[in-house]
């Protein structure tokens, strides 16, 4: 059973979003990291670029798979989690403690349109 955090919002592409004031943190869910297996590389997005909702923004790779990260909330890339550069396995260890990137100037409506924990759990059960 995949771990789901109560206070996050989720996309159907298995990204999570956490809002902290001006910042929106984006990561991948436990379900996603489990599907991928041992993560060997994360391609981080370029800073300062604006991405729309659903646009491919990053890639998370294992040896035998590559998963496109579709940006769940429109916004501008403020930070990328450089920690993942040398240690992508951190996502396997705790995917909710290690975000991929942070957006600013994000679209709050996009955030609200995401699934809440309950909705995401129901979505996972339907798969």
């Amino acid at each position, binding site marked *: 059973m995949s771990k789901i955090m109560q206070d996050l919002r989720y996309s159907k592409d298995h990204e999570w979003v956490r809002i902290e004031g001006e910042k929106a943190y984006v990561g991948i869910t436990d379900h996603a990291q489990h599907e991928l297996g041992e993560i060997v590389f994360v391609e981080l997005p370029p800073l300062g670029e604006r991405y729309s909702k659903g646009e*491919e923004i990053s890639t998370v790779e294992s040896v*035998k*798979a590559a998963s496109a990260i579709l940006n769940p909330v429109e916004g501008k890339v403020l930070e990328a989690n450089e920690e993942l550069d040398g240690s992508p396995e951190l996502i396997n260890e705790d995917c909710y403690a290690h975000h991929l990137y942070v957006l600013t100037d994000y679209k709050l409506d996009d955030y609200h349109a995401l699934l809440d924990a309950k909705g995401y759990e129901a979505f996972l059960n339907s798969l």
Partner: protein
Amino acid sequence: MVYPYIPHTDEDRSMMLSAIGLQSLDQLFEVLGEELQLSDSVPISHGRTEDEVQRMIDSIASRNVRGIPFLGCGCYDHIIPSTVKALSSLPSFVTAYTPYQAEMSQGLLQAIYEFQSMICEITGMDVANASLYDGSHAASEAASLMVASKRKSSTVLVSSTIHPFILAVLTTWAKGTDRAIRILQEKEGVVDLSSLEAELDETCAGLIVQSPNRYGLLEDYNTVADTLHTHACLFAILSDPLSLAIQKSPAEWGADIAIGDTQSLGLPLAFGGPSCGYMAVTESLMRRIPGRIVGATTDAKGRRGFTLTLQAREQHIKRERATSNVCSNQALAALMTTIHLSSLGWGGMVEAANQSYAKAHYLAYHLAQLPGVTLIWDKPFWCEFPLVFSDAKRMRKFLQELRNEGIFAGVRLAALTRQAKDELVLLVAVTEKRSREELELYLAAARRVMK
């Protein structure tokens, strides 16, 4: 009936059929349906014995005419040590497939690793792939890499001095897609960089240039890399790898991508194929380079071994999200290049490049003395140069007279570009393989025609 390469006897067939509960081979094909099953054999000839095929091929082969080739334009007659054919013909190299099963493919994987290393050394770049189909394919893969590397870009700038056939392949690459090729014009036989900055906009992903270029001339890329990088554009240099023994390497020019064809490093003319494309990039593009890549790693006992790696880039994993569809490489041709370079060493490579340079300049110098031809543009060249004739009749006579001496005097540029403006341009290539006698034979015939 016994067929070549099929070991089954009548007895085998009936035993095998009964093992699967059938009476005839036809039953295995019932699934094709009556409508599709051919009632007659396909209209090609009957089978032949080995001897019959060899005779037939001998007769076909006799219709090919060999001469002393002063022909280049992307395919050159360089010296190839005998080790190349002997070792690349070893049956397990020839009859293996892509080294998916690393443990039983270590020899091939290591050879590719050595190939990648040598391409990196020669180009000065950080990472090379296991090879591509040919130089034109390397150019279109470079274009794809550029567009994939810059958001919202769609255009690739290409120098008009790039080989006409490579330009043709790039034009096909863009056809029917939302990508485009834009031409950067030339001036006096080399790319005109004065308008470069003006061409670099949001849509432009990078620039592809070639040196030696389509005329054999060497180009100067001073400050080009900086200009491109300021506009978030990538810089690709296509070059004959043998020329890199003496001319500035792509890395020394600050290129992001080095591409070309290793034909000049151990591959025979072979009517133009198979050849072997190469691509090498800076470390920052390591995970975007297309094609197979071999890496070294270890097994559970800590022994070094080689394996296909960084596969998450590739079509079998990314499917429609892959930025390249390439699935194979030119492994055996890359092996030939590896054996060639192993035999020559850096010293041999420099020697071959220098001798080509000297002999080409010797011929060019003496041809330039003749009336009716000029060596246009007076630009540095390596082993190939453009000779311009005063009129078409003279050019035809020149080619014919030299043909009569068994010499293929050069490639008509118009045969590649099909453009009237190139009608009088002959590209003459001279490699280290051309002997002094051959050079003198060429000059003597030329003097007779052009007096």
